């Protein structure tokens, strides 16, 4: 690797202060630090040794945690495709179809997002922050496989500019960036995001034979006012086991609760994702589901749905594990994380059951709680301040 180091060392002066390409220093720096951890040493004063962790590693850990979801998603896009078109196919054929659909989306998301990040880094003269490593992977995973390429490009650019850079960049955003991308598409191009049963499955232009394969999701069945008993209507296809394993139609990376749980374990063991948010999120959804089971349900089949089904349907698990735990947009106090996670879970089920327009609640629940997270933190911080004041008053008394 000395060869590579030599090239970098030779080019470095051009990008430094006074060099010809000084403006583009962030680009050079991003490339250089990707190849080599920098040779910076601790400053004269202060901690003389530093922890081996850095932001790149932290972010890559989240990406690694998403890989099970990604791999399963690739297979499942192929699986659903062949189910819908009623063909038999081998494992490899399913993977090939999945890659054909998924890879371009990932490439577009990383390319567009990376360029926007570089543009702002050069413009503002700061280093490229690594937050986009995660966002760039999250965005394709929460999209339906049929999403047009230009839409994912526009959504990515919108989310980074309006969701993040206008607030000051990485670390300053109020809303989860990937969820902002999804919300943007949902409200701007609803047909492509939730337009009935044909968005969730890639059919290569063929019409789905709805007798054999509906293409609908479990959520839309449960939300259907004509459905009296959701679990019965689910049939074998949406059995609890299938919902858990995830061989069902849906957004690319979110269908498999099992894969999400593997990701959750990676996040919790590495300490990168808050276990408090994850646990309280699932707990909130489950308890809310139980509550609706008890309440009189006016023929709303969704209310009567057994609570544990909520945990494996739709994007709840994926959203709680990978999006609610985004440390920047989540509650930042430890006690606040319990409340924040719990409310995301509870709100998701609430929205699912009572919002007739759209049967999935996790997107709006996360965004809503992103907005309320600072308020939760405010009360936790105030409580800390009050304890200090109370100590003083006790003394004076």
């Amino acid at each position, binding site marked *: 690797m000395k060869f590579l180091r030599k090239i970098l060392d030779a080019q470095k002066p051009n990008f430094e202060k006074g060099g010809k390409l000084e403006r583009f220093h962030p680009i050079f720096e991003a490339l250089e630090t990707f190849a*080599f951890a920098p040779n910076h040493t601790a400053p004269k004063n202060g901690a003389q040794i530093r922890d081996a962790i850095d932001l790149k590693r932290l972010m890559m850990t989240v990406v690694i945690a998403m890989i099970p979801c990604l791999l399963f998603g690739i297979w499942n896009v192929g699986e659903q495709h062949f189910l819908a078109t009623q063909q038999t196919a081998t494992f490899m054929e399913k993977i090939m179809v999945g890659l054909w659909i998924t890879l371009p989306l990932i490439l577009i998301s990383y390319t567009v997002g990376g360029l926007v990040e570089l543009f702002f880094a050069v413009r503002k003269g700061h280093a490229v922050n690594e937050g986009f490593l995660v966002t760039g992977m999250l965005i394709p995973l929460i999209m339906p496989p049929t999403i047009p390429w230009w839409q994912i490009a526009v959504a990515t650019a919108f989310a980074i500019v309006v969701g993040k850079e206008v607030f000051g960049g*990485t670390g300053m955003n109020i809303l989860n960036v990937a969820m902002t991308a999804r919300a943007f598409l949902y409200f701007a191009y609803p047909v492509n995001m939730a337009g009935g049963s044909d968005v969730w499955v890639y059919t290569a232009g063929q019409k789905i034979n709805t007798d054999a394969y509906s293409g609908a999701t479990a959520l839309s069945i449960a939300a259907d006012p004509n459905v009296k008993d959701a679990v019965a209507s689910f049939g074998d296809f949406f059995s609890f086991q299938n919902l858990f394993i995830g061989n069902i139609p849906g957004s690319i990376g979110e269908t498999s609760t099992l894969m999400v749980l593997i990701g959750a374990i990676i996040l919790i063991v590495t300490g990168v994702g808050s276990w408090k948010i994850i646990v309280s999120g699932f707990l909130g959804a489950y308890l809310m589901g139980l509550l609706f089971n008890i309440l009189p349900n006016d023929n709303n089949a969704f209310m009567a749905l057994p609570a544990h089904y909520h945990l494996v349907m739709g994007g709840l698990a994926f959203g709680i594990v990978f999006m609610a735990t985004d440390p920047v947009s989540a509650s930042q106090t430890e006690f606040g994380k319990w409340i924040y996670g719990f409310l995301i879970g509870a709100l998701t089920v609430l929205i699912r059951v009572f919002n007739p327009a759209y049967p999935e609640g996790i997107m709006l629940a996360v965004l809503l709680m992103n907005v309320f997270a600072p308020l939760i933190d405010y009360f936790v911080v105030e409580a800390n301040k009050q304890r200090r004041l109370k100590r003083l008053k006790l003394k004076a008394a």
Partner: protein
Amino acid sequence: MRIKLTKGFDIHLAGKANQTLVDSIHSQTYSFKPSDFKGIQRPKVTVNEGDQVKAGTPIFFDKKNPQVMFTAPVSGEVVAIHRGPKRFPEEIKILADPKIEYVDFPVHSEQSLASLSADKVREILLQSGAWLNFLERPFGIIPHPENTPKAIFISAYDSHPLAPDYEFVFKGEEKYLQAGIQAIAKLSPGKVHIGIKADANSLFKSLKGAEIHEFSGPHPSGNVGVQIHHIDPINKGEVVWTLTPYGLRQIGYLFLEGKYDASQIIAVVGSEVKNPQYYKTYQGVPVGGFLVNNLKNENVRIISGNVLTGHKINQEGTLAYYDHMFTVIPEGNYHEFLGWIAPSAKKLSFQRAFGLLSFLSPKKERALDSNMHGEERAYVQTGVFEQVLPMDILPMYLIKAILARDFEAMEALGIYEVLEEDFALCEFIDVSKTDIQKMLREGMNALLEA
């Protein structure tokens, strides 16, 4: 009282001091550096180059606080006075006599010390320079003689990486430690508190006139600020004083023997030191003498103090006033191919993100270098600083209040209760690689000036 702390992190470094003591390294010159003290405003040097001084002769004071004398650590000739910007005196260098001569202060027995008035004690401490052993919180500054602390705190163990073992250093000094307590107890209407390590057969346990508290838990349980927080926290408007056992011994010695004795046992440690051990020397000693034929490598970082709160010095550097150790570690000025993702059990991390395997062998002694392992970034991670700060304080919110210069929030979030050393572990584990100790000091300076 017994206090169990669970938060924190012990950093196990290679190069721990053997329990051997060398008495023979006598340096030629010793330095006094006004910049070792916080908040000196109008410095005045009272000696000239060529003057002869004794150990305990005033050489410097702050016109803002003129009763506090800064005195020579050794007797000899003032050979150099280096000044920096605005003629601020950076260093006063004294060429030591072969045999140290001392300024005479009154000699007391334990009985006569008991009957000494607080004013008299204060006067002797101020004149002799031993006053500088006190640090006043909030802010960690030299206390004004007219201030009365609500209590005085001493931590009887240093939990920093490779720090000197006080049980070894102060063995046989119990008499002076005891006299020190007798003297300082007169300066506060409150108590003298000593924090010792739980379950250790500490020699400090037998001291009288002080309240003993046992602490257990990882670093920073030995930080006096953490101990204060759990014993009798500092509220707005209150001041407390702290000192180390080094200061306590010096004060006791001053009253019993009538001499300002700046000798102390220091540790020279670190993975790059061939023979890490203890030395008896004087405050302000240059590091050079300890490193002759004693270094394993050339590319090293020499630190006055410990790896968390110390500062980098060069081969000519000297021991800072409040430091009692030199640490020598490898300098981390290298590029590491794919160093940001390559798995490693060698590099230490408090965290367990992908590839950071040090948590599998937490007790292993590692030779850590000064590499930053990353670059400064925006704050992203939350909830980790809390895990290394065993205080009811929200570190990230306090840091952000400082960055925003929000004085009310700084105060409400507890800035009066902490000093840089208490936040040093936060700086160590910070993913965003920011200089938290420096920021904290800037916040305190802003409050002091406001």
